[in-house]
């Protein structure tokens, strides 16, 4: 009886915050859904009313639509690949006892504190710029032509910038997981005749499985909506070469002033995110329940 009361009380006390979160989520979603079926263009206030599926058709037939979905997936996949592989490698290095360990760790983590537009601008003007950039200087030093990264490899450049920002996050999570690996297990494997590679494959990697899953899931959420880096570097171009779904919605809403069309895009983005989440959970989600 006492526990029953406590449970009821706990539910009652939690209800307001649960309700608030629910409203916080439902209202914007419902409004977006509502707008996506309306004629709602800020340049043409006279045209209002129910639009049926016109907004969806409009967004779907946009020449950038399929490319933007593909680009979204490439950014997510590419950044995940670089950050997970790179994060494991750096975490393995940082786990070794070295001189100045504390300072090295802070340095490694610092890119995460740089806000996305700033980081992208630094990469654009100081690193990848064919005229002033460090990469261009290096190319010239060795006698090669400097590469105009954002014109030649726009999507790849975006992936590199975003990966640079998220690498510290992956490293941090993986490093803490690595430090929780039992030292006696490593010693036991050593006595069992496992060399470094075997210890990595059979002991370290399975131990990191859950942390890797967390990194993948959290990063995917944020990487689906990469926007600032594209805005300040390539502006989605050349053509639509570096436009992802989030950037396409921005273009429709704020450059085309088409609230209805952008809302339809937003709903499509929600659907895409759910599809990605579904496959992701099937692929790596089982690592979480242990």
């Amino acid at each position, binding site marked *: 009886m006492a526990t029953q009361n406590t449970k009821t009380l706990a539910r009652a006390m939690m209800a307001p915050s649960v309700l608030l979160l629910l409203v916080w989520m439902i209202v914007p979603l419902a409004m977006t859904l509502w707008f996506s079926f309306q004629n709602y263009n800020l340049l043409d206030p006279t045209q209002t009313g129910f639009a049926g599926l016109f907004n969806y058709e409009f967004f779907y037939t946009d020449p950038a639509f399929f490319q933007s979905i593909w680009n979204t997936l490439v950014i997510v996949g590419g950044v995940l690949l670089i950050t997970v592989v790179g994060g494991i490698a750096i975490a393995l290095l940082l786990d070794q006892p070295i001189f100045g360990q504390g300072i090295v760790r802070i340095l490694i983590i610092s890119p995460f504190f740089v806000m996305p537009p700033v980081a992208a601008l630094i990469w654009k003007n100081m690193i990848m710029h064919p005229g002033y950039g460090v990469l261009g200087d290096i190319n010239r030093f060795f006698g090669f032509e400097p590469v105009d990264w954002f014109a030649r490899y726009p999507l790849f450049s975006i992936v590199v910038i975003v990966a640079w920002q998220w690498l510290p996050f992956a490293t941090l999570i993986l490093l803490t997981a690595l430090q929780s690996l*039992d030292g*006696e*297990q490593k*010693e*036991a*494997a*050593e*006595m*069992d*005749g*496992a060399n470094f590679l*075997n210890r990595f494959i*059979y*002991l370290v990697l*399975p*131990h990191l*499985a859950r942390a890797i899953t967390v990194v993948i899931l959290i990063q995917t959420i944020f990487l689906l909506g990469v926007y600032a880096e594209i805005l300040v570097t390539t502006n989605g171009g050349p053509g639509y070469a570096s436009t992802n779904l989030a950037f396409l919605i921005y273009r429709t809403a704020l450059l085309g002033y088409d609230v209805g069309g952008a809302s339809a895009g937003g709903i499509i983005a929600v659907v895409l995110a759910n599809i990605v989440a579904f496959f992701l959970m099937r692929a790596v989600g089982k690592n979480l329940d242990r």
Partner: protein
Amino acid sequence: MGSITLNKVSKVFGEANVIPSIDLEINNGEFVVFVGPSGCGKSTLLRLIAGLEDVSGGQIMIDGKDVTQAAPAARGLAMVFQSYALYPHMSVRKNIAFPLKMAKMDQSAIDKKVEAAAKVLNLTDYLERKPSQLSGGQRQRVAIGRAIVREPSAFLFDEPLSNLDAALRGTMRLEISDLHNQLKTTMIYVTHDQVEAMTMADKIVVLNRGNIEQVGSPLDLYKNPRNLFVAGFIGSPHMNFVDGAYAQSKNAKMAGIRPEHLGLSKDSGLWTGTVKVAEHLGADTFLHLDVDGIGPVTARAGGEFGAHHGDRVYLTPDESKLHRFDDKGLTIRA
């Protein structure tokens, strides 16, 4: 197969000289127990033999071969760790098979060996389980299984029973002794528990502050401790030490008498004491007494000896079992 020789082995961690210099001979097939209080260097010594720590000086020989610089896996030893160190994501079968897989043995031979080891250790029904689904004793057996499939020249045990409850510890003690009788392989066993040392060992090595205090068979250490430390460490309850007038009357700085060598009476005796605590164990009664003019003394009485807090009893030490120590703490031989 399985003789180990330590030659002036030493280990220094930074400023701390953990093991100054140790010489030790372990014969093939022996069950050797390293025993000592915590921080005496017994685990470090085991890890030096295993190759998990590098020696600071000296030489380690296994079967006449110098392995001082050899990698742990190359020494042909198997170790059972205090935390068992099972691989948590692998089934029991894979755990036991891991060292064989690393040795690139073919799968059918691995299966055969794992099944055989599982049978010896009563693990056959648990081969597909994960370590987290096993009890403490079963995990312990998996760890031992992982060690025996390698057919090592010697087993190293690092306080393997300290995570088990008292009843299970007794059972596992028997099982390990039994295993030693079956395999007849050299075993080195580290413990701080002198009961484990006494019950299992062929040879006990008593360590204190990185030095060997005495090496000998359990009964040898019990009967003829070389010094005060060994006398106090071996035996349960501990030996009573008496100094002052009584010791001087025996021409010693310190006299030692074990609780079981004190005659108890309610009528007459050499010493008189007041019972402070009486522990009735059934077969035995341990009396913690305050003896007049001597101080706290522990005595063992028969299970039927009824005594309670505050009772006055008489004690008489068995002079033939008396240990005498000089001012350096060394035993005075008769």
